[in-house]
């Protein structure tokens, strides 16, 4: 059972990897910079783990470390999405030109 769970995680990982490769390979050079910062924003997902630590009842150190982690991850997320969106805002549709 445990082995199975472990393997299931591997499945999820491998499949997600495939999806990632295929999706990204469809992104045109035009949008490579936004892609870069979008991917960066998504790394902020470590926020999920951080929240658990920060909110756990494991005592002060856990909460402190967790809280710092939450702060850092949030910076990553907020900053990342902000700049990505600003960049994308700049891409004008043909015609919408000026």
């Amino acid at each position, binding site marked *: 059972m445990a082995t199975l*769970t472990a393997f299931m*995680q591997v499945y*999820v*990982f*491998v499949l*997600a990897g*495939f*999806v*990632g490769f295929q999706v990204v390979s469809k*992104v045109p*050079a*035009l*949008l*490579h*910079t*936004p892609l*870069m*910062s*979008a*991917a*960066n*924003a*998504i790394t*902020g*997902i470590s*926020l*999920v*783990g*951080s929240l*658990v*630590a*920060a*909110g*756990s*009842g494991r005592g002060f150190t856990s909460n402190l*470390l*967790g*809280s*710092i*982690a*939450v*702060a*850092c*991850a*949030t*910076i*990553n*997320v*907020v*900053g990342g*999405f902000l*700049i990505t969106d600003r960049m*994308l805002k*700049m*891409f*004008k*549709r*043909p015609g*919408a*030109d000026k």
Partner: protein
Amino acid sequence: MTEPSGDVREALIQTAYLASSVLFILGLRGLSDPAKARNGMRQAMLAMLLAVIGTLMHHDIVRFDWIIAGLAVGSVIGVVIGLPLGVDIPMTAMPQFVAISHLFGAVAATLVGVDEYFARATRPSTFVMTALGFEVILGALTVTGSFMAFAKLQELIGGKPITYPGQNYGNITLFLLTVGLLVYQVLVPGQPVLFFLMLGLAALIGVLMVLPIGGADMPVVISLLNAYAGLSASAMGFALNNNLLIVAGALDGASGFLLSVLMCKAMNRSFSNVLFGAFGGTVASSKSAEGLTVREVSIEDAAVRLAYAGSVIVVPGYGLAVARAQHLIREMADLIEKKGGQVRYAVHPVAGRMPGHMNVLLAEAEVPYDKLCDMDEINADFDRTDVALVVGANDVVNPAARSDPSSPIFGMPILNVDHAKSIIVMKRGMGAGFAGIENELFFDPKTSMLFGDAKASLAKLVAELKTL
């Protein structure tokens, strides 16, 4: 065994996570079309929100004070860092920004790993120990690596690659040592000292890994670090048995790797060459320009030629970004078009210093993206073009890439500017580009040089064009 427990909360959390994963995928998918891209990012934001909400429902979460504190501080700093960029910080700073942003994400991943390690009394199961190990190694390595990249790009430390004999062997030994430490701990758990030693070594690797890489190669390294950060998140997912983390991390890992590979391809350099070649910044002047003369052109003449050209192709390069003259280019183009000429932009995949750099730059100046032409799209048209206006581009228009096998950029696909009927090159002097080599194009009889900072020259050109 697959009997669903009555635990509704668990089900809720998992549903939120599943939705989040799907939204992340759809979000990235949006980036395949500039018209859908912003929408896609909204989906990704929603995904992140769902992830947080789902997590907050977790039964292990007993107190919220620390969480709120963290979220508050993080948001404030995030906004402070994020907002100015693109407003008064130039887009050229993108790589730095991404680097610093990674740094924070990686710090979070590492801290969580450390905490989890002690939460399991330093004796996690084989599987979890392995996962945690990778999480902290990749995390720490990303932290220091990103910092180094940032420092080099901000010129806090010299951008030049730092090399010393046996460097690569040293790094590899170090890496093996670190992994060895992990393996040992998996077999013999409960050794916090070794754990931190491992952490330290990983951090050291991060530093040494970036040392030999030239400032201009940083974008490649940064998106590689992006991949590492993603994999670290995935490892966290394995440790916490959290699918969302695994999925999001894998997505990042994939995109990071693919992007750095694409960059290398476009610069036609092998991955290893970028990572160990210490290429960026070295001055390998192959052919020298003895006996060759350059023709200069005055603002006035240049203006006249542009004003009466039927078709103009603008070739922007890193120099345009340095000069931040994108708005002036756009203004000039409008003037030429008013006079009846057709203006398009030839964007080389590696023009500038990051992937799609020129696209972002020109988009910022509100150039509609149907005028931004890919290399393959426009290369054939140079023959039929009256004036090719090269603004702060150098390597991407260097014919040596076609003709001179001894040149370090030989084989790199370039823009066929030299096929145009006439060429105007704007740069400050005869300075070399990123590859640090001579460029015959500047000595081509069809070429006339317009020396000076791109912004200054363009301002004069615009003024002149208005008078015509």
